[in-house]
C-alpha cells in the first residue's frame, strides 16, 4: 500500500502495467452498468424532461413566462449558452494543444474531456435557438437558397455564432471520432452483438498496420492544428455578441481573450470534476493517477490567474475610462442588487483557485470535487453577471429595472444539465472513456526510460568496479 502511494506520488503512470490489463480495465468500465448508473440516467432524463416541458410551454405561450421584459431582453438563456460554450474549450485544450506540446500526461484523461467538449457544445447549441421569439424561423439565420432570395445579415454577431458553433461542433466531433478509431478497433475485437456491429462500422476496418498508423497520426495532428484556432475563434465570436454592442459593460475590447480564458478555466474545472468521478466510479486509479490530477490542477490554477488578471484589466479600463454609464454599471455590480452574485463570482473565480496552490489539496480528490464544482459555479455566475447588470442599468435611466428569471427560464437551464449528463452517461458506457492505445504508448515510454537508465547505471558500475565489492545493482540478474 505504501508502495502504491509512493508510486502515485511520483509517477504519472506505473510502467509495470500489462497492456492486456489496460484493455481489460477500460473495457470493463464499459460493461454491465450498475444500479447507480441507471439511477443517474433516470435522474438526468427527468431533468431533461423538465427542460423540454418548459420549452414546449414557452413555444406556445411566448417569451413572457420567462419574465423577460423591456430592458431585460436577454437573460439566463444567453448566459448559460456562454457557459456551455466555455465548458467545451477544455477538451480541445487537453487533446489538441497539449498534444502539440507533447505533454503526454494528458493521454489518460483527454478522451472524456474531448467527449465533454462535444456534448457541452451540443448543449450550448440549444440555447441560442430556444431563446428566439419565433423558434420556428431559426433557420433564417443560416444562409440557404430560398424562393424569397433573401439572406441573413452577415454583419450580425449572431450569424457569426451560427457559423462558428456549427463548424466547431463538426470539428470536435470529427476529432473525437478519429482519436477513437484504434480503441474502437479494440472494442470491436472484444465485443459481440450490436456492439460488434457498431464498432465494426465505426472502426472503419482498422487493423493497425504501419500505413494506417502513419496516416492516422498525420490526420490526428492535422485535426489538432485545425481545431486550435477554431476553439479560440468560437469564444471570441461569442464575446463579440457583447463586445459589438454599445451597451455599457459590454462594449469592452478585452472581451475576446477574457472570454477564452474564462472558457478554458471553466473547462478545466469541469475536467477535474469528471476526473474525480470517473476515477472513483470506474476504478481508474491506475490511469487517472494523482500526479496527473496534480498537473491538471496546476493548469487550472494558471488559467484562473490569467482570468483574474483580465478581470482586473477590465475593471481598471472602465474605472479610468470616461464612459460614465459603464462606470455606473461597474459600481452597481459591486454595490447594487446583483452584488451578492458578483462578489460570489469573484470569490469562486479568483480566491478559491488559490487552494490549488497547495499540493496536499491538488492530490486530494475528495477535496477537489467540491472545489472544482464551485469554480464552475463561479464561472456560471460570471456569465450571468455579464448579461444581467448591463441590461438592468443601461444608458437610459427611465428603463432601469432589476429582474429575476421566471420558472420557464430556470426550467430550461436546469434541463440543459440533464441533457449534458445524459449524453455523457451514454458515452462512457458505449465508448472507452480512457484512450487505451495512448495509455499503452505512455506505459511503453515509461518502460523505455526506466530500463534504459538501469542499463546505463549497470554499465558504469562495470567500468568503475575493479575488485571492489558492494551490493549488487538492482538490475543484475534481470
Amino acid at each position, binding site marked *: 500500500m505504501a508502495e502504491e502511494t509512493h508510486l502515485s506520488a511520483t509517477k504519472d503512470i506505473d510502467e509495470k502495467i500489462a497492456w492486456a490489463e489496460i484493455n481489460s480495465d477500460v473495457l470493463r468500465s464499459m460493461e454491465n452498468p450498475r444500479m447507480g448508473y441507471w439511477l443517474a440516467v433516470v435522474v438526468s432524463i427527468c431533468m431533461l424532461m423538465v427542460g423540454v416541458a418548459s420549452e414546449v410551454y414557452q413555444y406556445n405561450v411566448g417569451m413572457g413566462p420567462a419574465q423577460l421584459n423591456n430592458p431585460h431582453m436577454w437573460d439566463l438563456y444567453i448566459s448559460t449558452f456562454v457557459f456551455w460554450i466555455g465548458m467545451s474549450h477544455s477538451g480541445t485544450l487537453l487533446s489538441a494543444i497539449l498534444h502539440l506540446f507533447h505533454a503526454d500526461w494528458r493521454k489518460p484523461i483527454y478522451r472524456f474531456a474531448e467527449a465533454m467538449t462535444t456534448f457541452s457544445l451540443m448543449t450550448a447549441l440549444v440555447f441560442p435557438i430556444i431563446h428566439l421569439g*419565433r423558434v*420556428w424561423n431559426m433557420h433564417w439565420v443560416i444562409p440557404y437558397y430560398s424562393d424569397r432570395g433573401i439572406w441573413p445579415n452577415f454583419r450580425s454577431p449572431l450569424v457569426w455564432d451560427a457559423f462558428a458553433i456549427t463548424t466547431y461542433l463538426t470539428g470536435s466531433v470529427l476529432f473525437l471520432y478519429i482519436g477513437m478509431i484504434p480503441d474502437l478497433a479494440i472494442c470491436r475485437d472484444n465485443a459481440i452483438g450490436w456492439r460488434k456491429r457498431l464498432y465494426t462500422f465505426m472502426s472503419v476496418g482498422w487493423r493497425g498496420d504501419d500505413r494506417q498508423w502513419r496516416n492516422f497520426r498525420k490526420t490526428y495532428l492535422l485535426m489538432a492544428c485545425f481545431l486550435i484556432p477554431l476553439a479560440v475563434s468560437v469564444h471570441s465570436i461569442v464575446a463579440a455578441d457583447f463586445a459589438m454592442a454599445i451597451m455599457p459593460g459590454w462594449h469592452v475590447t478585452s472581451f475576446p481573450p477574457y472570454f477564452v480564458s474564462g472558457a478554458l478555466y471553466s473547462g478545466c474545472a469541469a475536467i477535474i470534476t469528471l476526473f474525480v468521478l470517473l476515477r472513483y466510479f470506474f476504478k481508474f486509479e491506475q490511469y487517472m493517477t494523482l500526479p496527473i490530477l496534480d498537473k491538471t490542477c496546476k493548469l487550472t490554477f494558471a488559467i484562473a490567474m490569467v482570468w483574474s488578471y483580465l478581470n482586473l484589466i477590465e475593471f481598471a479600463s472602465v474605472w479610468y475610462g470616461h464612459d*460614465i454609464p459603464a462606470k*455606473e454599471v461597474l459600481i452597481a455590480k459591486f454595490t447594487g442588487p446583483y452584488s451578492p452574485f458578483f462578489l460570489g463570482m469573484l470569490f469562486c473565480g479568483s480566491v478559491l483557485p488559490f487552494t490549488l496552490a497547495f499540493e496536499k489539496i491538488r492530490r486530494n480528490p475528495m477535496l477537489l470535487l467540491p472545489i472544482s464544482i464551485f469554480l464552475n459555479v463561479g464561472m456560471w455566475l460570471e456569465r450571468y453577471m455579464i448579461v444581467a447588470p448591463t441590461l438592468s442599468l443601461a*444608458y*437610459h*435611466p*427611465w*428603463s*432601469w*429595472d432589476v429582474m429575476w428569471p421566471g420558472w420557464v427560464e430556470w426550467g430550461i437551464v436546469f434541463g440543459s444539465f440533464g441533457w449534458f449528463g445524459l449524453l455523457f452517461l451514454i458515452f462512457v458506457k458505449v465508448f472507452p472513456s480512457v484512450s487505451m492505445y495512448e495509455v499503452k504508448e505512455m506505459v511503453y515510454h515509461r518502460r523505455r526510460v526506466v530500463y534504459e537508465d538501469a542499463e546505463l547505471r549497470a554499465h558504469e558500475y562495470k567500468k568503475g568496479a575493479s575488485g571492489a565489492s558492494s551490493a549488487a545493482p538492482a538490475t543484475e540478474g534481470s
Partner: protein
Amino acid sequence: MSKIEFDRRDFLKVMGVSGVAATVAGCDMPSYITSEEGAEEVIPYLSPEEFVIPGVGVHYASTCLQCPATCGIRGRVREGRVLKLEGNPKSALNTGKLCQMGQAGLQTHYNPDRLTKPLVRKDGALAEATWEDALALIEEKTGPSSGLSGGRFAWLTGTISGHQSVLLKAHLESLGSSSHFVHEVINTRVWQAVCQDMLGQSMPRLRIDKAKMVLSFGADFLGTWMSPIHFSADYARFRSGEDRGMLVQAEPSMSLTGANADLWVALRPGTEGVMALGLANVLINKERMDASALPAAALELINQYGVSRTTKMTGIAGDRLIRIARHLKERSPSLVLAGASAAGHVGGYQSVQAAMLLNILLGNIDQTIEASGDFALPQLASVSGGTSDLSRFADAAGAGKLDAVFFDGSNPLFAAPNHLGLTEKFDSIPFKVAFSQFMDETTAHADVVLPMASALEDWGTHVAAYQGGDHEIAFQQPLMEPIYPGTRSFGDMLLALNSMRNPGSYDGLEDYYGYLQSAVGSIPGVLKGEDDEAINVSAWNRILQDGRLQMPVDTRAFTSNLSMDDMDVRDADPAFPYYLVPTPRGTLYDGRHANIPWLQESPDQISKVVWNSWAEIHPVTAAKLAVEEGDVITVTTPDGVLEVPVYIHKGIHVDVVAVPMGQGHEDYGRYARGRGVNPLKILQPGSDAKTGELALYGSRAALAATGRAGRLIKMGNTETQHGRKIVATITAEQQRRNEGDS
C-alpha cells in the same frame, strides 16, 4: 332627405370581412396564416356612393362627447368601420387637435361592455326585455294616463345642450315639471357665477395667448378646466416668441398645468383668495398701483391682508409674494384664473371673487378677459352642470318629492359622497329610467335601462359652454352604423317620449335625424336655399362636412358690478391634520373613462401610475408616516376610510394628501370594476354658501401607515435623470434673447 339617408346608412355598413382581416395576427406560426383560396370572404357593398372605395379611408366630421368641452372631431372611416379619431381643423375650439380622452372615444364606442338590450327590473333584479315592453312600462308610469305631473318628475343629466336639451325641456314641460338636475363633478360653476355677478357675463373669453403672465389658482386649464385643448393651443402661443409668457400656478397639489408652470407654489387649500388679496395688497401699497377701479369695501378688505397675515395664512414666503406681485405689475396684460381647488371650498365663491378682483385691479378686463356675450340661440345654449344639483337632487329624493326620474349621461351614485346617502334615497324613488351605454353604478339601481347608441353612432347638436372665439353649433353625426341593433339614439328616444306625452307633435319626422334637419333648417339664415321651405341639401351637406355651424357673436360689453366678501377660511381640526384633495385628471376624468383600456394603461401625467389609485404625499409627510413609495396608507375622514398605496413627490403641499378621482368603480365593466378607490365617497359635508357647490377640496383627513406594501404599477423606474442630458432646461432670458423672431 331620404335619399341622403339611404346612401349614408348603406355606406356606413360594415363591409365584409376584408377590413377585419387585420385582426388576424400578421406573423405567427405558419399554421395560423390564411392565404389559401376561399379561406376568407369578401362581401361588396350593395350600391355604394361614388367616393366609397374599399381600402381608402374617408373622413367624417362629428363632435367629441368624452367631456363637456365638445371639441370637433373627424373620424377616419374605412370599410364602414371608424378606425381613428382626429381633431376637426374646422373647429374654432380645438383646431384639429385632440386630447387623450378624445382619442379614446373609439374605445367608448367599441367597448365590449356596452349594453345591448333593454333591461327591466322584475322582482328586484334587472332582466332583459324587449323595447316594446320597456317603452310600454315607461308609458304606463310617465305617460298621460299615469297622472304624473309637476315636480314629481325629474330629469338628471350631465351637461347637455343643443337640440337634445330643447327636446328634453319640451318633455319636462309636457309633464309640467321644471326640475332638471344637471350634474357634473368637474365643473366651472363658481367661476361662472362670479363672472356673472361681477362682469355680467358667465363665460367671458380668456385670452391666455395674449397674456404675458398667467397666475392661476388651481385652474388646470391644460388638463381638465373648461376647454383644455383650446387653452393648450393658446398656451403654445403664450409660450413662444420673444415675449414668452410666465405661468405661475398656486395650488395644493400639482396638476398638469402646475407641472408646466415657471413657478409652482404649494398653497394651503382654501387660502387662494387670501393669497389673491395679499397680492392686491402688495400691488396697491408696495407697487403703488392705481386702485381707483375697486370699490371702497374691497379696498379696506384688501388692506386687512397685509404681507405678514397673508404669509401666516397661506404659508407662502413674503418675498415670494412680493416677487409675484412685481411680476404681475411688470408683465401686463396678465391673467388671473381660479379653478377647482380655489372654488371647491366653503368660501370658494369669495376666493374666485378675489381672483377676479385682482384681474380688475391689474386692468385685465377687456385685455385678456374679453366679453363673449351669450349664445345667439339661448334654447340651444349649454346647460352646464355642477355638484349643487347633486345635493339638491339628494334632498328632493330624500324628501320623497320624486315619483319618476330619467337619467342620462351622468353617474351620480358613483360621484355622490357618502354623507349625501344618495344610494338609499335613490332606491326610494319609485320609478327610475336610465338612458345609458354602460352598466354603471347608477344604471345598476335603475328600474328600466335603455341601451343608448354611442356618440359615434348618433345624431346630435352641441353647444360648448366655453366658446373659443366665434360661436358655433357642433354637429354630431354617425360615423358608422350601430354595432348593436338593440341600441337606440338618445334623440329618437326624446322624440318618442315627447310624442308619448302629447301624441301628434313631431309628426312627419321619421326620426331625430329628420327633426334635426328641419330644426336646423328653421334657424334663420342658416340653410339659404332657393326656397326656405325645402331643405337645401348642399348647404346641409356642407354643415355636416364642417361639423360646425357658425353663429353670430353678440358683442355685449361687460357690466361691472364689483363686490367683495370676506374670506371664509376654516382652521384645521387637530384630529384630522391633513387636507384631502380629490384630484381631477384628464385621463379617467370624473370616472367616466375608467372602462377604457387605453386610458387605464395610459400613465398618469404626474405619478406615471397605471391601472390603479394612489395617494400623493410630500416626502416630509412620508417621513412622518415612515412609508416608502408603494406602501399602503389609510386616509381617514369623518365620513370614511380609504386604503391606498402612496406616491411620494414634492409637487404637493406638506399638509395635503391627494387621491385622484376616477377609480373605485363597483360596476362599470371589466376594465373598471373593483379597481382602486374613489376619494369622492369620503368627502366631508359642506358647500359653498353662494352657489351651493359641494366643497370638494374642503375635507380634512388623518393618515396612518398600515405597514403593508401595496401594488403601485408605474411606468419607468426612475424619478431623476442621473446627470444625463435628457431634458435640458434653459432660462427664459436666453430663450427670449435668441428666439425673438419667432
